[in-house]
């Protein structure tokens, strides 16, 4: 068995999150979304975030992307090659532009960066095929299913080739079969290029299958509950990894803690 587990302690830090807090102020009230979150994501790490709904996962990712500003704290990102974009996000909700075709959507980031057309087309075609949308290049999102639209957004982010990929429940809207294929494809791609990935998911299974580490946030407002090391060997295979006895151990451990937080979230919501 090939074990290519990289000792995460020795790698450089890609994202430093230092005491991040976020409060949303509206006219009526203040929502505390994140409290004092600190964590280091290493270079080339597949870093998963889990936590109950509404705990601030998306908020944290948006702060990392620079789409939202933290109220307190600091984020330090290392950017090695300014030719490439620093980070690109796959959003949780439907985000393919309805007025662009599949092809135009996928190449949008490249077009904004003025990548020459021939190169753009080649990269775009490659990703359209990887997400299984060949034949739909000239369709508009209005002609696609929900899962296909999500794959357009995934291809758009990957085609942009950033140093850091920020993925917010990218597979949540996919059907089970496509999800497994996309998970396998993502692992395969990632094991090939070792980008830094921050990956939000509500599925513990998915987090264990994909991740090097999993950060669990507490129920609203989000604090770091615990960070788990996923010391399963790579390359990983979605079909086989569940059979690994260690998988079940990890699952039980993580679920035990997450269950408490999910229950706390439900109590907060008055269930």
């Amino acid at each position, binding site marked *: 068995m090939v074990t290519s587990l990289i000792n995460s302690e020795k790698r450089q830090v890609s994202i430093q999150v230092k005491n991040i807090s976020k409060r949303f102020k509206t006219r009526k009230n203040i929502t505390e979304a994140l409290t004092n979150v600190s964590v280091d994501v290493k270079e080339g790490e597949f870093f998963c975030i889990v936590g109950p709904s509404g705990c601030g996962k998306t908020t944290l990712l948006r702060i990392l*992307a620079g*789409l939202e500003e933290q109220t307190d704290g600091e984020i330090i990102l290392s950017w090695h090659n300014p030719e490439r974009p620093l980070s690109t996000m796959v*959003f949780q909700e*439907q985000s393919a532009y309805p*007025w662009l075709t599949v092809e135009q959507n996928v190449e*949008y980031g490249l077009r*904004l*960066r003025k990548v020459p057309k021939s190169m753009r087309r080649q990269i775009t075609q490659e990703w359209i095929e990887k997400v299984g949308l060949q034949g739909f290049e000239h369709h508009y999102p*209005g002609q696609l299913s929900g899962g296909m639209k999500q794959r357009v957004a995934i291809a758009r982010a990957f085609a942009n080739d950033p140093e850091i990929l920020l993925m917010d429940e990218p597979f949540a809207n996919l059907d089970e079969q496509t999800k497994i294929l996309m998970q396998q494809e993502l692992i395969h791609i990632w094991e090939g290029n070792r980008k830094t990935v921050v990956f939000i998911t509500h599925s513990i299974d998915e987090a264990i299958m994909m991740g090097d580490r999993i950060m669990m946030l507490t129920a609203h407002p989000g604090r770091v509950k615990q960070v788990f090391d996923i010391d399963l060997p790579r390359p990983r295979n979605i079909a086989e990894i569940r059979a690994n006895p260690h998988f079940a151990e990890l699952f039980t451990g993580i679920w035990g803690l997450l269950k408490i937080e999910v229950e706390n979230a439900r109590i907060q919501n008055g269930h």
Partner: protein
Amino acid sequence: MAQAFEPPAMPANAHQVVRAPGAVTGIKQSRLSKATRDRILQIGSPLGLLALWEVIVLAGMVNSRFLPAPTQIIGSFWNLASTGLLYLDLKASLYRILMGFVIGVVPGMVIGLSMGLFPIVRTIFDPVVSATYPIPKLALLPLFMLIFGLGNLEMILVIASGAIYLVLINTAAGVLEISQIYWDVAKDLGASWWDRFTTVALPGALPLIFTGLKLSIGMAVLLIVAAESDGANHGVGFLIWRAYDIYDIKQMYVAFVLLSLMGYVFTVVLNEIERWLVKWRNV
């Protein structure tokens, strides 16, 4: 011996529901595509109305002096057309309408897009637009006549002032209606303000921009008639007043028909351009 399975008999009040093509949409599947059928209906409905009108007049149900039959109007139309007057009237009005339309619509779109895109522009223009929008555009005609004298310019500017608001307001609303997620994606992928202007604001607002354009061209036809009542010596509006002076009601109807035809042709042209530009809406 085992008894053969008998399906239970259907209760007397049971019935079957059939879902077949056409059963859901109510449209029978036919050789005509939906688009072709719609176009036939669009052309057919005014023709049907004309036929009904002819029948009503011929049957003597109305006084034909005040409501001449379509065939009588066509006769009057040929008379006017053969003298070349009609051509001059039509040309003069079309020129004013199209010039006014362009002069109004272009800045209307630019300001509307900027208002939608930049809160600061919105803050500056909102009060100005709200305060000046209710001024009847025709009330500006005497002012423009004093400033620019009698000619075409004052009429063109009245039409432009009507068009600019409708396009501006609809365009700004169109931009504001674009979901936040599309701005987020653009920002995440490093779009400049110009990129956001051209790749998000403009395409996203296009459906409402077209609403504004269609309202504007209708407004232009309304305004031209009133604007041409004074100072013009050619124009479809002027034709109406000339007919009034010589008490030729048939000629008036020629003008009415021309106006409605103009409005109709403009709308059809704009609809076609819209179908072509906003492809993603009707795929």
